[in-house]
């Protein structure tokens, strides 16, 4: 079997998964753009592998697959970093919220006495 077919199936599957997650409100708009973009790039590269080869040639990389590994790894790292920042912000907001609820509950229990 031509390995290109597997690549196309996987990238289309990724695109469909993103659409399904969006449709049922699991994925918010904020992250929709980056995931749709990633899925579309994957589809383009799997359908037209020549694009990858030309870009690799431009950067002087003899094996196009290495460009895919380097670029893919870099993008994944960036997305991980974004996730860390987002998690840190969410923790901070959770802390603020819990502290604020705790303060209100203390106030309410004092008012009862």
């Amino acid at each position, binding site marked *: 079997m031509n390995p290109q077919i597997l690549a196309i199936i996987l990238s289309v599957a990724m695109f469909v998964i993103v659409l399904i997650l*969006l*449709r049922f*409100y699991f994925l918010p708009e904020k992250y*929709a753009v980056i995931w749709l973009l990633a899925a579309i790039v994957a589809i383009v590269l799997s359908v037209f592998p020549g694009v990858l080869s030309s870009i690799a040639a431009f950067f002087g990389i003899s094996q196009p697959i290495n460009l895919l590994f380097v670029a893919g790894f870099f993008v994944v790292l960036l997305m991980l970093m974004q996730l860390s920042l987002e998690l840190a912000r969410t923790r901070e*907001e959770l802390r*603020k919220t819990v502290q604020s609820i705790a303060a209100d509950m203390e106030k309410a229990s004092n008012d009862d006495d």
Partner: protein
Amino acid sequence: MKTLIAIPAFNEEASIGAVLANLASHHPLEHVIVIDDGSRDSTSDIAHAAGVRVIRHAINLGVGGAMGSAFKFAARNGYEALVQLDADGQHRPEFLSTLLDGIGRSDIVIGSRFAAGGGFRSTWARRNVQRVIAWTVSAYTRTRLTDVTSGFRVSGPNAILLFSEHYPVEYLGDTVESLVLASRQGLTISEVPVIMNERAGGLPSQSIFRATLYTGRILLILVLAAFRSAPPSVTAMQKRVKRESA
């Protein structure tokens, strides 16, 4: 008609006092609620002192999140209409009765700056951005609308029920997405012309570049809104309503 005026406010201590004082002669202040969306200034203190109800968010959730709280409050307290009013004095309370007159004829009434009779001067870029967005939303809702990003609007009982379950939270998209959501749930929307004051801050669509970015984001939100099913909370609400009426 039991009417609630909801004012989302984030760091608006400079203008909130004047807005409430101006509002007092048009609407009883015990039926006004300020949603302090995590301000770090004295917004909620000023609102408290003016004698209105105040909801205070521990963190900043954005206008969509603030309006979500307002709609939940309205639904819980049996209000039949909710008017959204800006905290920066852009919306004039003398048009409240004009807006409220439209409820009964439709579920949501928007105060439009661009409808015939409304007065608003703005830059070329801003006018065209508004035109593209309004045209798209009009196509969705099958109603001719001219000012879909206007926050000055009133929601009737059906809209309050819907929005108390789900109000879009996306920054700057809440006004537009809420209309698409409402019209897909079978609610009707209409417009009345109003005159607005220039706002202090200004829309983030003044340069051509930012206008394009802003339009692109709103159009993306619209495409997503059309493609999405009803939010899970809204589906659950419809089932509940159907059960109760059966």
